[in-house]
């Protein structure tokens, strides 16, 4: 039996809007259709359904929501494992799982209603997770230890926040603002998952602490102001989570969708290449760079639509930004619009590649692109000489090379004959 009240009619309105948008072939129509379904339970959760809330229905919504959350997480894990088994990356599923678990933990903390404690716990938890992640990802390498120390420092700020909450919240706010303006994050460009996440977490923790009051821990704290603060904080938290998801997930496919849309609109055939701009030309009129709009082979290399290509003065493929992970000369190279440059020698031999998976190349276990690269930038590209000999890589596993023992994460360099150039220091 469907309860016909204002919420029901509002949901119907949302649903009809979604249907109209779907008929007009707008993809975000799904948001309205799903929003119509989730309107009532969402209003119940935030205690905004007023007298229209039936406690048993609220309990059913809560329990079914928990089951649905578990189902989504298990499905995401399964799909991620399937991707990995196929030798593909599963970054989107990691982000989905991380966002889901973080949102659940965060809302659970906020519902306790002790904002200062929530802010402190956020700082400590993120610090500890960062420290563990640094060790898990980089081991005891300098980069891994650095990230671990950074995480422990962040966690120690959390412990300090228990004594000086507002001072630490002010410090976090200043650091976040410096990062936002220093790295121009206000332009909503992906500056690295770690940086975006760190800024959002710092802002969230600071806001949570600032929203707390001195009477918070007393049994007779102001009830109505507490619930309104809770609503504000949850709304801000979920907005930040959605913002993070947009920056990290949406922006990665944004360029490709823009390119795909433009294919159906207008493209130019220039010097045998179907492409869209911005176009750059050499003084002699030869094409220097563009974005190809369909699968094409340049300098003997098949490239997918959306790849940004740069050509030499002679029209030879120099480097490119792959739109998606692409197999290049037997190596799965990472693609992400303007994130990872794949380079070529003049003879067409692969020169620089960001591996999308760990790979044994000429007997050397070479590491794929790792999280550390997104934090520190550069360093993990695999390079080749013009004769195809491996020039540089970061080891994905420990091994002995020319009687020297190397550990996972160590860089190794070879000359064009395959002889190691620099030994372990």
């Amino acid at each position, binding site marked *: 039996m469907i*309860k016909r009240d204002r919420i029901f009619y509002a949901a119907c309105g949302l649903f009809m809007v979604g249907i109209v948008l779907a008929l007009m072939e707008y993809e975000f129509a799904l948001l309205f259709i799903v929003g119509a379904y989730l309107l009532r339970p969402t209003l119940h959760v935030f205690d905004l359904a007023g007298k229209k809330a*039936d406690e*048993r229905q609220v309990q059913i919504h809560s329990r079914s929501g928990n089951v649905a959350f578990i189902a989504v997480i298990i499905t995401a894990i399964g799909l991620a494992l399937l991707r990995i088994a196929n030798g593909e990356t599963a970054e989107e599923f990691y982000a989905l799982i991380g966002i889901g678990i973080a949102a659940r933990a965060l809302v659970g903390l906020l519902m306790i209603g002790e904002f200062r404690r929530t802010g402190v716990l956020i700082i400590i938890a993120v610090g500890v997770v960062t420290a563990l992640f640094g060790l898990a990802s980089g081991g005891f390498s300098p980069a891994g230890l650095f990230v671990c120390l950074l995480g422990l420092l962040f966690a120690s700020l959390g412990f300090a926040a228990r004594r000086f909450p507002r001072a630490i919240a002010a410090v976090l706010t200043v650091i976040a603002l410096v990062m936002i303006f220093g790295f121009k994050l206000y332009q909503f460009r992906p500056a690295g998952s770690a940086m975006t996440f760190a800024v959002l977490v710092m802002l969230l923790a600071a806001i949570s602490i600032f929203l707390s009051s001195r009477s918070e821990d007393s049994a007779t704290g102001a009830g109505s102001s507490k619930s309104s603060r809770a609503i504000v904080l949850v709304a801000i938290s979920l907005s930040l989570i959605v913002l993070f998801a947009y920056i990290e997930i949406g922006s990665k496919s944004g360029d490709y969708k823009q390119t795909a849309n433009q294919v159906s609109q207008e493209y130019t055939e220039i010097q045998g290449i179907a492409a869209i701009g911005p176009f750059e030309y050499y003084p002699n009129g030869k094409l220097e760079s563009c974005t190809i709009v369909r699968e094409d082979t340049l300098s003997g290399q098949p490239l997918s639509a959306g790849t940004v290509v740069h050509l030499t003065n002679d029209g030879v493929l120099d480097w490119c930004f792959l739109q998606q992970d692409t197999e290049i000369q037997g190596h799965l190279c990472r693609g992400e619009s303007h994130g990872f440059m794949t380079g070529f020698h003049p003879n067409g031999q692969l020169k620089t590649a960001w591996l999308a998976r760990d790979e044994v190349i000429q007997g050397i276990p070479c590491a794929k692109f790792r999280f550390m690269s997104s934090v520190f930038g550069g360093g993990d590209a695999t390079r080749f000489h013009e004769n195809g000999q491996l020039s540089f890589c970061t080891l994905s596993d420990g091994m002995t090379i020319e009687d020297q023992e190397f550990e996972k994460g160590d860089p190794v360099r070879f000359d064009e004959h395959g002889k190691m150039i620099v030994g372990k220091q």
Partner: protein
Amino acid sequence: MKTNLRRFRFERGELSQQQLADMVSVSRQTIVAIEKGNYSPSVKLALLLAEKLETTVEELFELEDEDHD
């Protein structure tokens, strides 16, 4: 937990499930679930039911032996 909700509902002018539901601002399905013993109401709802049926919470609801485990 055992409930005498149905009995008290009839004793108070043969109230229908819908009428009682409207009096305490819940759905009829909730009243049905309570009477069948499939749902334990909150303290607030239990007090409201007792007030509308002019009785006490202890008269409306009784703990059973397994509830003491």
